[in-house]
């Protein structure tokens, strides 16, 4: 369960050229994809999921660590290193789980960058009310599909 934070490669950078220590909660398709992406960029990634099987989704390129456990459990988040995390992303398919983890990260541990995945657009008002930075892949996906149909000329 220990996190490993290799220094990553030289290409490492966020927009300010910093290597980030990122905790990802939820290793579904979105979580696993994002984890691999960040890891390949050289960021240190710890991914948490309560289903150990879910880690099979991680690509071979993923060089971060995995923690099998419930992300809403503060002890698990601590063992993931939340006290020194630069960013926490919650990407489970449970909106309330995402909201709870994001709040623990943002309000209790004061993590600088916290992003919560919102699955059900109806819930986005709840995320907003609680002051969370949210991405709703459902809405984003719908918009992209919409644009693909409406904005693209037949050529």
């Amino acid at each position: 369960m220990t996190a490993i934070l290799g220094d990553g490669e030289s290409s490492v950078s966020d927009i300010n050229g910093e290597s980030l220590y990122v905790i990802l909660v939820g290793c579904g398709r979105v979580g696993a994809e994002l984890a691999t992406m960040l890891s390949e960029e050289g960021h240190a990634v710890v991914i948490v999921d309560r289903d150990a099987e879910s880690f099979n989704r991680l690509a071979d390129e993923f060089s971060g660590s995995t923690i099998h456990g419930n992300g809403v459990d503060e002890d698990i988040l601590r063992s993931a290193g939340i006290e020194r995390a630069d960013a926490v992303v919650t990407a489970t398919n449970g909106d309330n789980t995402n909201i709870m983890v994001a709040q623990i990260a943002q309000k209790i541990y004061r993590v600088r960058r916290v992003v919560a995945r919102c699955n059900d657009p109806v819930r986005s008002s709840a995320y907003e009310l609680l002051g969370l930075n949210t991405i709703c892949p459902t809405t984003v996906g719908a918009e992209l599909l919409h644009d693909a149909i409406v904005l693209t000329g037949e050529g």
Partner: protein
Amino acid sequence: MFIVLVGGGKVGYHMTKELLDIGHEVVLMEKDAVHARTLKAELGSLVIGHDGCEGRWLLEAGVKRADLVLAVTGEDEDNLIICQLASALSKGKARTIARVNNPKNANVFRRLGVDETVSATDLILSMIEQDVEETGAVVHLMKLEESNLELVEFRLGKESRAVSSRLGELELAKRGCNVCLLIRGRDTLFPERDLELQSGDMIVALVHMEDEVEIRNFLTEPEVRVEMS
């Protein structure tokens, strides 16, 4: 009081009936439509078959005028969000109480603004501790927040120096121990000064936390040497 209860499981169902019995106005929210229908058949129109984790349904349940919102679903995450939304939507007017299934979450909930939490696990654990301490020890009934006072129980064993003394003779008040009542078998006795204490009696008292150990020793130990204080 007007109470919005979220979660129609066993806890929510029985709680609704009890609260109605003692005269409160209750709305019960259950997100599972099939289960909600069963509840509705018995409890009537006070059941709302929608998810209390969504603001719009909390509003429909009347959360803005609620005195109390109880979140008693089996999911801690849900209970947290229900209480937080209720509090935000009622602009802090509604008092919120959350059931926590994992006792570790109580602390997280408090730091995220939920007024009160109840954990069945903790309650049952404290009862087990009560059994463990049966042999003449002290049981913490309740810590009165911020007052530094505790309501505690002392059980008098056979060997206790207090046995056969009159309550008044022990001068417990001088030791910072305010006896509230005495439980003897199935009887609850008013703590009269001339009440003679018996082995097995349970003294329920209000004490300062820092005095508790000393009082327990005084009450439960046999009288062998002169008490130093």
